[in-house]
């Protein structure tokens, strides 16, 4: 797991008159309105500016970042799953065969998250 650190909140000025009543379906409207007005400002979340720690390069070129429940990598691509399931040669042989987007994808996923029946233990 990546190491943890506080990623800083950068404070922004907030202009309440640019906001609409936001419901989920109105998040669109929020963005469009803000784009139209050329502002994209939010109130600082929790940390005041003085305590914000922006990401800095650490020694050895590492920057400490905050891992989090980000679905795009963890659930959509499923990085860890692929690694734990992959017999790389076999999986990539499939990838080569079915590499056209939307054609091979289903087959590759099949390999990654359902082991073949003979490998399943009781």
């Amino acid at each position, binding site marked *: 797991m990546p190491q943890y650190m506080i990623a800083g909140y*950068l404070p922004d000025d907030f202009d309440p008159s640019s906001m609409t009543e936001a419901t*989920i379906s109105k998040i669109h409207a929020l*963005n469009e309105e803000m784009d139209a007005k050329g502002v*994209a400002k939010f109130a600082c979340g929790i940390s*005041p500016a003085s305590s914000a720690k922006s990401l800095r390069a650490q020694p050895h070129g590492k920057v400490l970042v905050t891992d989090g429940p980000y679905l795009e990598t963890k659930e959509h691509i499923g*990085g860890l799953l692929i690694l*734990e399931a992959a017999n790389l040669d076999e999986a990539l042989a499939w990838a080569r065969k079915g590499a056209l*987007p939307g054609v091979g994808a289903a087959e590759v996923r099949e390999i990654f998250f359902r082991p073949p029946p003979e490998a399943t233990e009781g």
Partner: protein
Amino acid sequence: MSERSTEQIRELLDSLYRVDSGRILATLIRLLRDFDLAEEAMHEAFAAALSLWPRNGVPGNPRPWLISTARFKAIDTLRRRARFDASQDELVRYLEGQASSAERSNEEDSLEDDRLRLVFTCCHPSLAPEARVALTLREVCGLTTEEIAKAFLTTPRTLAQRIVRAKAKIRDTPIRYEVPTPQELPERLGAVLQVVYLVFNEGYSAAAGAEVTRAELTGEAIRLGRLLTELRPEPEVIGLLALMLLHESRHAARTSPTGELILLENQDRSLWNREQIAEGVALLEKALKSHRFGAYTLQAAIAAVHAEAESLAATDWRQIVALYDRLLRIQPSPVIQLNRAVAIAMCDGPEAGLAHIDALLDHGELADYYLAHSARADMYRRLGRAAEARSSYEKALALTQQEPERQFLQERIRQLK
């Protein structure tokens, strides 16, 4: 008082423990100034209740009875220690002199304040993040040392030492058992929310087939989140709870019966918990209305876009990218940029996503982050660039093999061969 059987009393006490032990412990820590003494005293009080209440009847107000009894038990304990250690005398006298304040402390307000004091103390910024997490799970959530150790893939001994050091630091600094002042509150609340977020993330990220305890961390985090929204309904507190509920809503669909992770595109969305989604969306709207929201609320908004989509194809990826843009403006994290790149790939194709991921990895910040490499591998795979995909997968695998998950991973790979 009607007489009740020991069995009924035991059930009553179990229920009281479940519901109230957190509050009682928080108050006792304030009264007794010592985590361990408070915990011991509380358990003695419950034991006393079990033996006395069948005979004497259940008190009209069980909680104050338990707190008073615990206090007396603690004084007894300290008196015993004082026989060997005169420095305890002062503490004994202090506690005995506290009789009247203990009565007053049984007011509802004060009990809620005590819970807040406990949470803020356990999450104090001068404790290391992993210490805060461990202490919070132990003292606020009531998990055992063994459970926490298992959840964080460490040994009970390591974890116990971590907690001991944290308590010592609280005692020695001293970190005062107080709710922060309004001036201190924003930063201190941030520290608490970070602990809750990290606990949730541990549970959410638990590898398929991992110990159940680890996955249950999401439930603990949500419980903590609820407590915080009761105690301090700030927009980001509400936003964080929304975020957690929305992610948790997919739990049943996310894991196969045999324990494998089911990717988003293959999840049976009818298994998504609609109540949690509805609650999460309602909380999100509340947070957004405040105009004072931040990163957690924005992450919740992204999760809500997914939650309200009927399928992967129907997901409004452009909206997700736009929300990531907003999020990056207040929290410029490369991890967030990586996830945004994946969303961009869904809008504009893997070539576009790859360009972003390459730039991120060239920058060096995510060089050791396995998800960056597996995301890149996925782009290559979709583009039919198998050799490069393989190389990226191998890099990702090598990185996870340095982690504690290594044994688990290798076992999984062994099973599949």
